[in-house]
């Protein structure tokens, strides 16, 4: 199959089928409804399951039931819908069921707007629901990367028996870009027969539950989950460093769509001989702390400029993992506005600390 021009939402749906997860439960909400529309047509062709639920609450809880079979299942929504799904996310994570959730993030709070946003960073990385748990969260910045992340997401969720969230936004969902399905490598769904509820034939019954009335049992369960997050944090940090002329003094930090816009800003300024680079977290949970720590200790790195489509959420992780050792400033657009490369460039010029006496020659 050659490259094909696809809407992000449709590509995400197709990717799930490639990943062996032709089982989807969801509820319409802009700007991700095309996932459901696409799969409503596509699932019958591949013998998959498509069900439009009565609400996001229903959809997410159907995912619990469906994932209990051990088969690959997924759902998608956008910010207000993901809030409704937070109940199920907490239960599913506690029950350690593999599955994939997609948030095509739109501007909030409340009903907000339908345009692209990264306002759910805290929700995705810190507060996806009640209790002490984490999702694995991947943040693609192109349609092709979203497709690749779908493959990784199902594999990771199998490996750790933990839900994985793809954190996209309205732009990735709505725009069309070339997608190459030949370039992706779907993993093999894991064998979950040791715990899946498929009927107690010739074995002890399997019970999937999240209630631990004995506090010691519940503490042990929480510690078990915590140990898993330590493993995940150790193994699954992903990031990209983009641009720079050898010794960048200013590091842009951004993820997803805003990172993509930053790349253009980096290209333009590198061309002018201004040495800046971009640090892009690809996994936002676990946050790529090790790489950022290393970067922040480099002598030539003098400052960070964090760019997000919100009021500054990931910046807390930037402060944390750079130990605030260098100045960190913030540039954000809210309300559904994607920042332009020009305004990021203006901001860089405004905040950039310039060594006065020495004149540095830009070299490749």
């Amino acid at each position, binding site marked *: 199959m050659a*490259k094909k*021009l696809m809407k992000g939402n449709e590509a995400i749906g197709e990717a799930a089928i490639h990943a062996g997860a032709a089982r989807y439960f969801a509820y319409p909400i*802009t*700007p991700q409804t095309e996932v459901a529309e696409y799969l409503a047509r596509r699932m019958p062709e591949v013998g998959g399951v498509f069900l439009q639920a009565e609400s996001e609450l229903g959809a997410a809880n159907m995912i619990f039931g469906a994932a209990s079979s051990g088969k690959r299942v997924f759902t998608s929504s956008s910010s207000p819908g993901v809030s409704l799904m937070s109940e199920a996310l907490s239960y599913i994570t506690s029950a350690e069921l593999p599955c994939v959730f997609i948030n095509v993030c739109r501007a909030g709070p409340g009903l907000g707007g*339908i*345009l692209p946003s990264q306002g759910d960073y805290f929700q995705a990385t810190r507060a996806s629901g009640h209790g002490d748990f984490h999702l694995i969260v991947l943040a693609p910045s192109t349609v092709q990367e979203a497709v690749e992340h779908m493959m990784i997401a199902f594999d990771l969720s199998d490996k750790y028996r933990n839900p994985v969230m793809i954190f996209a936004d*309205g*732009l990735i969902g*709505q*725009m*069309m*870009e*070339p997608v190459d399905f030949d370039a992706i490598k779907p993993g093999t769904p894991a064998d979950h027969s040791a715990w899946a509820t498929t009927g107690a034939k010739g074995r002890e019954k399997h019970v999937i539950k999240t209630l631990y009335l004995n506090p010691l049992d519940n503490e042990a369960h929480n510690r078990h989950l915590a140990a898993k997050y330590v493993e995940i944090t150790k193994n699954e940090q992903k990031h990209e460093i983009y641009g720079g002329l050898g010794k960048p003094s200013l590091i842009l930090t951004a993820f997803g*769509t805003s990172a*993509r*816009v930053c*790349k*253009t*800003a980096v*290209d333009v300024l590198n061309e002018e001989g201004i040495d800046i680079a971009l640090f892009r977290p690809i996994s936002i949970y676990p946050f790529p702390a090790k790489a950022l720590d290393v970067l922040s200790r480099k002598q030539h790195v003098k400052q960070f400029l964090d760019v997000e489509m919100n009021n500054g959420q990931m910046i807390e992780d930037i402060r944390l993992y750079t130990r605030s050792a260098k100045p960190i400033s913030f540039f954000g657009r809210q309300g559904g506005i*994607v920042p*332009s*490369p*020009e305004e990021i460039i203006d901001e860089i010029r405004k905040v950039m600390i310039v060594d006065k006496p020495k004149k540095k020659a830009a070299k490749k």
Partner: protein
Amino acid sequence: MQREVKFAGFGGQGILSAGKFLADGALEEGKEVAWVPSYGPEMRGGTAYCTIVIADHPIGSPVVNTPYDLVAMNRPSLEKFENTTKAGGFILVNSSLIPDRVTRTDVHEILVPCNDIAMKLKNNRAANMVALGAYVACSGVVSLETIIAHVPVTFARKPQFVEANIACIKEGAKIARQALEKVL
């Protein structure tokens, strides 16, 4: 190389599909491309627009506030976006529906009576194809042959529309070339 064009008009004019056509053509020629729509309630009958970014390198920001070219299919689109395009680019004006002229002097104005041409070719709904042909002919971002070759692919399920649409694309291209000669 990177070039951006905004197609703008009202819902129902086939703005998004004309843009998709161009994006498909660019992809077929092995270029990098992004098609970014306006979406939401404004799609349903109000202003519709999309931006197509075509490049020979991976595309950074797909959101472009100052596109190189503009294809304005109705009057509000011209009013809204005339001053957003880059100097030196083309502004293609659908003169069937827009009595105004481009006021800027640092861009190339191309007047194409898209609806009149479509009507003349008895394909009333294909003003967008006229505009597409016209834009491709004057910008050269993709070859006209690629676009024409793509028509049977897009209309695979409605083969009866293939010829009429090709005619509109070709006529749009012809008119644009004539207009271009006057401009350049």
